């Protein structure tokens, strides 16, 4: 990766305040992009004039329009949307509640759809290209044993479907839609039994947010100009098992 792969591009990242989202935002910034972070909590102001953050709950009405407007107001344009924000509530499949379903669908699926639709409309109306990156999961295609999280898995499978469907329908407008499937990533939100977890991964180490960030930079850059509708798993070989 060079430090100019995203030069001149304006990237909007949801869930940018911590974990994988923070790693993606950092890597995009290092690659020359201007970055607008969108999260429910505002983070401390960055010392880079190319970084700004807004506090928005993406599941509320008008959130997508607010995110797009903030990017244009702050940086004059928006070139890339990265749907990273997600929630996970685990329970046995016979105990997951309707409220848990509604919450995870709203954040993990409907908000990404509305954001992507809003940004795509803007690009089409202005005859500009654009890129949408959906942060999916291993659970877009394989289920997770413990803790049980069937509803989360359903939303991640559906988000992969969204990636394919939108890539197909937006191809004629030169809008690419892609996905990353992170493996087990070390963040302050996950507290795995480290030794056991590392033994389960062919690479014998947890992934880092920067591992995902670097893949995001590639997929959102012009280097990936012929890639659309595809998911790249960044998982240290986990899915091979």
């Amino acid at each position, binding site marked *: 990766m060079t430090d100019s792969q995203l030069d001149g591009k304006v990237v909007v990242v949801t869930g940018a305040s911590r974990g994988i989202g923070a790693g993606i935002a950092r890597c995009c910034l290092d690659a020359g992009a201007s970055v607008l972070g969108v999260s429910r909590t505002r983070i401390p102001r960055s010392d880079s004039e190319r970084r700004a953050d807004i506090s928005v709950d993406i599941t509320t009405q008008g959130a997508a329009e607010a995110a797009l407007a903030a990017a244009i107001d702050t940086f004059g344009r928006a070139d890339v949307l990265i749907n990273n924000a997600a929630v996970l509530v685990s329970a*046995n*499949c*016979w*105990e*997951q509640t*309707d409220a848990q*379903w509604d919450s995870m*669908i709203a954040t993990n*699926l*409907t908000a990404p*759809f*509305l954001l992507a*639709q809003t940004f*795509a*409309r803007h690009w*089409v109306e202005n005859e500009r290209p654009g890129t949408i990156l959906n942060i999916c999961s291993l*659970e*877009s*295609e*394989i*289920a*997770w*044993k413990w803790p*049980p*999280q*069937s*509803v989360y*898995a*359903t*939303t*991640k*499978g*559906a*988000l*992969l*479907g*969204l990636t*394919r*469907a*939108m*890539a*197909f*329908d*937006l191809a004629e407008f030169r809008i690419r839609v892609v996905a990353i499937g992170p493996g087990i990533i070390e963040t302050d939100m996950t507290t795995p039994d480290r030794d056991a977890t590392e033994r389960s991964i062919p690479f014998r180490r947890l992934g880092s947010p920067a591992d995902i960030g670097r893949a995001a930079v590639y997929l959102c850059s012009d280097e990936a100009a012929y890639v659309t*509708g595809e998911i790249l798993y960044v998982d240290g070989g986990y899915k091979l098992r």
Partner: protein
Amino acid sequence: MGRATLRRLSEEGAKVLGLDLNESDLGESCAGYPDAESRAVDVRDDAAVHAMLEFECDSLVNAAGILRRHRLLEHPLDDWQTTIDVNMKAMFRLSREFARQRVEAEKTGVIVNVASVESFTAAADHVAYTVSKSGVAMLTKAFALELAEYGIRVVAIAPGVTETGMNIALRNDPDRADRLRAPIPMHRFAQPEEQAGVIAFLASDDASYVTGAVLPVDGGWLTA
């Protein structure tokens, strides 16, 4: 597909309860099948769950689904939400309550979900449907993983284009029908009975080692 499945399973000797929104369609489905029961309910409602639980089935076939076509950039939120609710949330709720009933009673069981080739591919102006069917594939796998140790199998079929009410208008337009038929290796659409046959197999003891699978029944669609 649901109608064909109700009939096929009845012919196989099962006692079947059919649920559907439309009472007269249900009546037609059950005509000639005096042992089959039916209840007109919306699968999204608690009434559907209660009807299923009262019947105490050992197999649940989630075949209800809708398809609403829209240009992506004009896709209204209400049709998005309705598609998610009918195709995914209703399936989740029925599967959850079925699983709870069987696990608490320490009984085995089978869930067969109707997914789609669009669990793996895309089709123009189908975003909500494609999304919902991709979700169904993972719902199937996740439930299968959790319920395997309780002797409950969870599987899905991924139908290709099948002659049902979902595509009557398209099939009646010769040009559109030809264009849709052309890339199918078998050069024809499926009959609902062909999907029902695979559902019957998957629900049977012949499929006793099959769980978590999403089986295409697509005339070869996914080969190319």
